[in-house]
């Protein structure tokens, strides 16, 4: 069920990207989709009653959660912030050229 909830967030993001007409809303849609995927990946790695996969002096043989999806999520988070910084740079530049964020008015290219 939790998997599906994360997928619902994903779909909301997809809807936002497809249906909205504002550049920044589209960007936010992409960010929401990335959040959803990160959430999904961490959910995949959780074990009932597990603890964080960090060995400290007291704990030797504990039930650790899966560290691999967490490493994947760390990478994915960095990639998402990189994408965000770059796409916002493009948005600002487009605003400078067209003076609007409305995608229906930004249509010099056809098709």
């Amino acid at each position: 069920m939790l998997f599906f909830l994360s997928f619902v967030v994903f779909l909301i993001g997809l809807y936002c990207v497809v249906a909205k007409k504002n550049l920044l809303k589209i960007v936010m849609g992409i960010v929401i989709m990335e959040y959803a995927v990160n959430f999904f990946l961490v959910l995949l790695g959780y074990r009932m009653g597990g603890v964080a996969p960090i060995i400290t002096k007291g704990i030797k043989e504990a039930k650790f959660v899966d560290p691999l999806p967490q490493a994947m999520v760390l990478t994915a988070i960095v990639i998402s912030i990189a994408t965000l910084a770059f796409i916002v740079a493009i948005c600002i530049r487009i605003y400078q050229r067209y003076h609007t964020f409305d995608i229906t008015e930004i249509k010099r290219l056809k098709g």
Partner: protein
Amino acid sequence: MNPLKNAEKGMTIIVKTIAKFIVPPIILFGVYMILHGHLTPGGGFPGGVIMASAFILLTLAFGKEVASQKLRRSTASLLESTGALIFLSLALLGIVVGGWFFLNFLPKGHPLKILSAGFIPLANIGIGIKVGGGIFAVFLTLAIFRVFPKK
């Protein structure tokens, strides 16, 4: 409403004073996080961003001019490339020393000590420098860019 609108002259005296006190601990915390990446949660990336955010705070509080004196954009870009090169050369050193790309060629040391885990702390330092420099550079670029150029 928009903190970046008055980025030219900076914010009020209250913000400036608090920022002055809070910036050194933030940087220290970033350094701690980078160095303890192999023992506690955190590592090169969050540590680097924390250090960059200290400079971002300076920029927001004091305005672009003051912050740019502390760390210029070209310097930040330079740091970024250097950090990336450190990480890449660690990987290449693996070939030179042991014959495999990304071989962890340093001794592992005692577990749970700060000097352990082979090249992981060094890699964390490289990433930290790279991320800190890069994030601050991109922030300055975004902040300096004028949407409505003065004519």
